[in-house]
């Protein structure tokens, strides 16, 4: 049975958990976006053997579950003196960020590939150095194709934050579970948690769609 009193009691607790969810998502997205770009450029431009190593690492991260990666880093850090006191939330957004960077790098790569060869040729004809060509011509054009998919990954990352429960970060879902555990008002807690997720991610998705349409034309 739905109990409004429990619901009202749960809401502030859930929102406190939601703050951690947001921190993990935002910081994780920033890490993933930056590292993803570095990976995409590295895979393109590095010597073959490093390239191979980076690809192997990317394949490894993509093909193992996020939870396993979280747990592995959490317990591995606990064994390293000096890293014992790193907050679980920090480990959380770093691991999530690295995990998603492997996906975002693929989006960047596709974006870079979508820049027509004529653009590179015009840059050569103007004798522009490679770094300038990349930052002023290739990247701005690649980003138009990349940003919408980066946004989608950010939303996916947002929905993956409950995995942080595994390393005892109290984010939204864990907060709901704990509240349910102490009051047995599981229905209220998880319903509200779901609604909070929806309220946050649906507008974001709409925003990404609009951005996608706006970026489609110059």
């Amino acid at each position: 049975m739905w109990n409004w009193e429990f619901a009202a009691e749960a809401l502030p607790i859930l929102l406190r958990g939601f703050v951690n969810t947001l921190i993990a998502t935002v910081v994780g997205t920033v890490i993933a976006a930056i590292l993803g770009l570095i990976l995409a450029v590295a895979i393109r431009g590095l010597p073959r053997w490093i390239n191979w190593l980076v690809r192997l690492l990317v394949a490894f991260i993509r093909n193992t579950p996020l939870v396993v990666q979280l747990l592995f880093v959490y317990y591995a850090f606990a064994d390293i003196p000096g890293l014992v006191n790193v907050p679980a939330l920090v480990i959380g957004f770093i691991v999530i960020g690295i995990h998603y960077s492997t996906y975002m790098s693929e989006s960047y790569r596709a974006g870079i590939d979508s820049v027509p060869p004529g653009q590179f040729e015009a840059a050569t004809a103007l004798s522009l150095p490679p770094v300038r060509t990349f930052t002023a011509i290739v990247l701005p054009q690649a980003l138009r194709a990349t940003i919408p998919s980066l946004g989608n990954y950010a939303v996916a990352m947002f929905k993956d934050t409950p995995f942080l429960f595994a390393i005892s970060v109290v984010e939204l879902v864990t907060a709901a579970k704990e509240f349910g555990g102490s009051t047995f008002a599981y229905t209220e807690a998880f319903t509200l948690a779901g609604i909070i997720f929806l309220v946050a991610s649906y507008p974001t998705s709409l925003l990404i769609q609009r951005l996608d349409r706006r970026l489609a034309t110059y």
Partner: protein
Amino acid sequence: MPPTENTPDTPSSSATPSGPNTSASATPAIEFKDVEKSFGPTTVLKNLNFTVAPGERVTLIGPSGSGKTTILRLVMTLEELTGGYIFVDGEPLTFEERDGKRVELPKKRTREMTTRIGMVFQQFNLFPNMTVLENIIEAPVHVLGTSKDEAVKEAKALLAKVGLSDKADAHPTRLSGGQQQRVAIARALAMSPEILLLDEVTSALDPELVGDVLGVLRDIAETTDITMLLVTHEMQFARDVSHRVMMFDGGQVLEEGPPDQIFNNPSHERTKSFLSSVL
């Protein structure tokens, strides 16, 4: 190709220009020495030797696949030279001979050399993420180190020259093909190149837009001494502005000479049949 009679570009008063400096002592603006170019197993150019004098305007004609565009792309370093050497002002462009060996020059050195060369493409290749003005000042500012104010001033003068003063802040995608191509010409000229390469610059344009672009190029030909190497199907234009026409076939120079001779009195059967197919 549309027959040249249909283009709005009627032959102006014989534009046949003052002669280039072809005296034997002058260093050629461009020299091809034993140039070879293959794409995988396909050899496009073999043992190609020719020079272009400073200020000379040379049109390359010939059937498609004869290697004309490849020659321009080699000069612009858009294709890797598989054999031989190209010299610009007597200096090696991409490869040089050192102790009897063919050695590739550092990329940075090649880039210094290419600042003397400009190219206009069939597909314009303007940067869509920049305004017209930004397109033009990009290389002067970031390659030549011109101050932004100075570059903007020069860019505006160039835009006036190509008749697009009112489009400085427009994005290229908002312009017609003919306007885009004129911006591309202004962009190439902004580097004050000694050599201008024109690769079928009117081929992608609607027929009614061809005249404006050719008009701008005529103006450049008449008012500057830029060395030009052009590939075009606009035979009337080629006849008017070039000092020399080179007929290519199968990666070889079949014959060459002043436009009057090549167009009116070709000596090769291949040239005759080629000309009758395009004129």
